[in-house]
C-alpha cells in the first residue's frame, strides 16, 4: 500500500474537473438507474467510447460515478411504483413498496439512501485497503465452490414465499425450466430453441426483468380500477424532507443489518461471475430468518439488507479486475475496455506502474458513494412528487415507452421487446395468482452457473459426485444449505408435536 500515492490521488480527486465529472457521473447514474429498462451496463457501453477522447483523470471519475450510483437509483421506482429500476433492486421492491402503500414512502427512500451510502462507503474502503487479499480468496473458488455457493443461494427461496412454500417452489422450478432454453454449456446442443438463433444463448435476462417487473405493472395499472384506487390513497401522502432523515434510533436498529449485508456483499461480490443477485438474496434471507412473517409487510430491514448488499457488490466487483485483471461481470468488462483504451493494463502492475490513476479510481469509489447521499436525498425529494403530478394513464404509457426502449437497446433488436411483452404477461399472471417473482428470477440467474459448474466439476473429477464434498469450502457451503433446508421443516414438526398434546 502506497500511502503517499493514495493521498496524492485523494487530493487530485478533489480538484475541479475530476470532481465535477464524478458528480456528473453520480447524478447520471441515479437517473438511469431509476429509469426502468436502463441500467449501468447500457450506460457504460454508451459512455466508454466517449471517454476515449477524454483524459483519464476525467474519464474514470465519470464512469465510476455512474457505476456506483446506478444500482442505488434502481431503488426509487422499486419503492414508489414496485418497478425495480435495475435487477439489483428486485427485493427492495417487496418491502419498499409495502411501505409506500402504508404512506411511508419518505422513510423507505431514506432507508435506501442511508443503507446504500453506508454499505457503498464501507466496501470502497475494503477495495482500497484489502483488494489484494480478497482477490486471493476469490481465486480459491473453483467449479465445486461455485456450484455449492449457487445451491446455497438457491436454498434461500425456501422461505421466500411469504408463508406459501408451494408457490415459491413452483416459481423456482419455472425459473430453472426457463433457464434450460439455449445451448448446453457442455456439448453445445441447442435445447428448446426450435432452430431459432435468438434462443441459442438462452432468453436474455434484462428484457425478462423489464417484462416481469415493468410491463406487468403497466398492465396492472391499465387493467384494474380497483388497483388504481388502492394506490391512490398512498400516493396522496407527499414525501417530506424530514421523513427521509432517519432518527438515530433507526440507524442503530439498522446497523447490524447493514454490517451483515455488507459482509455478504463484499465476500460474494469479489467472485467473478457469481453475480450481485446471490449476495442480495442471501442478505434478505438473513433478515427474513430474523423477522419471519413481518418481512414483506413494510419492514425497514427488508429495504436495508438488499440495498446495502447491492452497493457493496459494486465496489467489490472491481477487486478481481484491479488486482487480477479479470473482469467479474459485464460492467467491469466495460471498465477493462476503458482502462485498455487509456493505455492502462489492469492487474497487479496497475498500482505500481500507474499509481496515480489506479488510486484515483479507488478513491473515486469512496467519494462517489459519499456524494450519493445528498444527491440521492435530493432526487428522493423530486421524483415522488413528479410521479404524483403525472396522470395515471400517462405514467403507464411513459413506463411502457421506457420498457420498450430498454428491451430494444440490449441487443438492438425487436426480439428483446417480444421477450419483454411475453414476460410482462407472465409477470401479470404471477401477481394475480400471488406467486412470488423473486424465486423465479433467482433460479433463472443461478441455473446456468450451477449447470456449468456441475459439468466442470464432473470433467475435473472424472464423473465423481463425491468431488463436491471432498473440497472443504464447497462441503461447508453444502452443509449450510442442508441446514437451511431442514431447519424450517424441523421447526414445523416440533410445533406440530407440541400442538398435538395441547
Amino acid at each position: 500500500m502506497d500511502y503517499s500515492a493514495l493521498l496524492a490521488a485523494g487530493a487530485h480527486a478533489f480538484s475541479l474537473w475530476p470532481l465535477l465529472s464524478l458528480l456528473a457521473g453520480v447524478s447520471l447514474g441515479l437517473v438511469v438507474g431509476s429509469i426502468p429498462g436502463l441500467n449501468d451496463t447500457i450506460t457504460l457501453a454508451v459512455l466508454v467510447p466517449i471517454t476515449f477522447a477524454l483524459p483519464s483523470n476525467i474519464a474514470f471519475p465519470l464512469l465510476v460515478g455512474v457505476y456506483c450510483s446506478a444500482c442505488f437509483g434502481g431503488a426509487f421506482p422499486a419503492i414508489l411504483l414496485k418497478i425495480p429500476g435495475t435487477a439489483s433492486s428486485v427485493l427492495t421492491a417487496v418491502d419498499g413498496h409495502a411501505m409506500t402503500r402504508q404512506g411511508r414512502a419518505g422513510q423507505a427512500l431514506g432507508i435506501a439512501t442511508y443503507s446504500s451510502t453506508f454499505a457503498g462507503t464501507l466496501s470502497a474502503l475494503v477495495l482500497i485497503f484489502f483488494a489484494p487479499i480478497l482477490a486471493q480468496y476469490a481465486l480459491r473458488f473453483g467449479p465445486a465452490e461455485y456450484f455449492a455457493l449457487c445451491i446455497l443461494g438457491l436454498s434461500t427461496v425456501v422461505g421466500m414465499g411469504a408463508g406459501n412454500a408451494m408457490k415459491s417452489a413452483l416459481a423456482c422450478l419455472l425459473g430453472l425450466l426457463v433457464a434450460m432454453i439455449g445451448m448446453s454449456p457442455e456439448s453445445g446442443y441447442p435445447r428448446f430453441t426450435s432452430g431459432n438463433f435468438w434462443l441459442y444463448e438462452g432468453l436474455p435476462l434484462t428484457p425478462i426483468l423489464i417484462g416481469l417487473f415493468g410491463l406487468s405493472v403497466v398492465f396492472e395499472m391499465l387493467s384494474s380500477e380497483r388497483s388504481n384506487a388502492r394506490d391512490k390513497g398512498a400516493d396522496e401522502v407527499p414525501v417530506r424532507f424530514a421523513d427521509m432523515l432517519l432518527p438515530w434510533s433507526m440507524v442503530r436498529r439498522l446497523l447490524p443489518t447493514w454490517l451483515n449485508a455488507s459482509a455478504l456483499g463484499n465476500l460474494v461480490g469479489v467472485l467473478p461471475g457469481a453475480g450481485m443477485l446471490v449476495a442480495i438474496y442471501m442478505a434478505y434471507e438473513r433478515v427474513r430468518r430474523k423477522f419471519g412473517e413481518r418481512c414483506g409487510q413494510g419492514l425497514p430491514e427488508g429495504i436495508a439488507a438488499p440495498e446495502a448488499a447491492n452497493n457493496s457488490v459494486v465496489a467489490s466487483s472491481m477487486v478481481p479486475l484491479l488486482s487480477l485483471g479479470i473482469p467479474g461481470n459485464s460492467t467491469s468488462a466495460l471498465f477493462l475496455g476503458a482502462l485498455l483504451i487509456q493505455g492502462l493494463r489492469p492487474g497487479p502492475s496497475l498500482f505500481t506502474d500507474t499509481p496515480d490513476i489506479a488510486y484515483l479510481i479507488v478513491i473515486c469509489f469512496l467519494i462517489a458513494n459519499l456524494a450519493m447521499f445528498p444527491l440521492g436525498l435530493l432526487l428522493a425529494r423530486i421524483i415522488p412528487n413528479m410521479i404524483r403530478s403525472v396522470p395515471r394513464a400517462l405514467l403507464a404509457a411513459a413506463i411502457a415507452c421506457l420498457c420498450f426502449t430498454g428491451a430494444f437497446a440490449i441487443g438492438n433488436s425487436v426480439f428483446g421487446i417480444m421477450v419483454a411483452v411475453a414476460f410482462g404477461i407472465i409477470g401479470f399472471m404471477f401477481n394475480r395468482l400471488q406467486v412470488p417473482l423473486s424465486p423465479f428470477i433467482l433460479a433463472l440467474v443461478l441455473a446456468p452457473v450451477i449447470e456449468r459448474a456441475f459439468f466442470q466439476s464432473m470433467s475435473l473429477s472424472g464423473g465423481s459426485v463425491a468431488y463436491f464434498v471432498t473440497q472443504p469450502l464447497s462441503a461447508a457451503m453444502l452443509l449450510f444449505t442442508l441446514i437451511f433446508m431442514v431447519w424450517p421443516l424441523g421447526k414445523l414438526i416440533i410445533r406440530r408435536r407440541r400442538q398435538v398434546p395441547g
Partner: protein
Amino acid sequence: MSVIPLRIAVVLLAGLSSGALHAADYPQKNIDYIVPFAPGGAVDFTGRLIAEAAPEVFDGHGFVVKNMPGGGAVIGQTHVSRAPADGYTLLAMTSSVINNALTKPVSYDLDSFTPLALFNLDPGVIVTATDGELEDLQAFLDAASSDSVSIATPGDSTSHHVTALALAEEEGLNFRYVHNTSAALQLHQLMGGHVQAGFMSLGEAIGPVEDGSIRILALLDGARNDLAPEAPTYQEVTGHEFQWGTFRGIAAPAGLADDVKEELEARLGELLTSPDFVERMGEAGYRVDYRDGDAFSELLEGTAEQMLRVLPLLETAS
C-alpha cells in the same frame, strides 16, 4: 394524369444518377459496424478503436459500433449477411463465421460476405499457472499422453476448444475439457489452480503473463512473437508443425458493387495502417497485421479447410 409519370421519371432519374455516381458518392453517411458480441470483448474493443479513427478517413462520416450479441455471434452475422450490400453495413469478421456456418443451421456461409481487410492475427497459446506442476511443453505432452490433463476453454465449440481437439487427435493426447463462458473465467480457473492448462490467444494471455500469474508453454505459430519472445513455438520443442490462431477483420455483405468495394478497401487500408491506429492498438496489446481483401479471403478459405478436417472430432466429442 401528367403528374404521376413525371414523378416516376424524377424518381427513376434520381435512381439512375445515384447509381452512376456511386463511387464518387461513397461514403454519404455514417457506416454501421456490427459487432456480433457483447460490449467489452476484444472484437468490440478493436471495433471502437477503428470507429475512433474512421471520420478522418471516411470524409467525416463515422463508424457506428452496434453490438448484436446472441446465438454465439449468429445474430449479428445473420444481420450483416442479409443487409443491403451498399457499403453502409460492415461486420467485425472473426473465425466464428466459419465455425457457425459449419456447426449450426445458419442461413449464411463464407460466400455471403465480401472480405475487405484483416487487421489482427492472434496466434494461439497453451498456458498454465505460474506455479503449476507442468514444467514445460514436454511435461504437458507427457502428462497428457500417459494420463490426462484438465484444460480450460472459453466455451464449447470455440476456436480454442477446436484447437485442443485437433492437437489431441494429432498427438494422441487425453484432455478433460472444462468449458467456460469467457476468457475471463478461464483465467480465473488457471490462476486459481483449478485446471492444469488452458488454450487461449496470445492477446488474451499477454497481460497475465507479464503480471507473472500464468506462463506460456507453447506458441502455436510459425515463429516466436515479439510480445512474448521467451515463449517457444510448438514446432521448436516437438519438431511437429502445429499452428492455430484467431483473426480479426472486416467484411461487407456479398454482392458489393466493385467501385464501392475498391473505395472501402482503399480507405480501410489507409485507416488500419495509419501510425495513429497502429500505436493505439499497440498500447492495448494488439499487433496490427494488415492484409487486403484478397489475402483475407485466402486466409478464410484456409481456415475453413482446417475446420472441415477437425469437424468430425467436435461431433464425436459432444
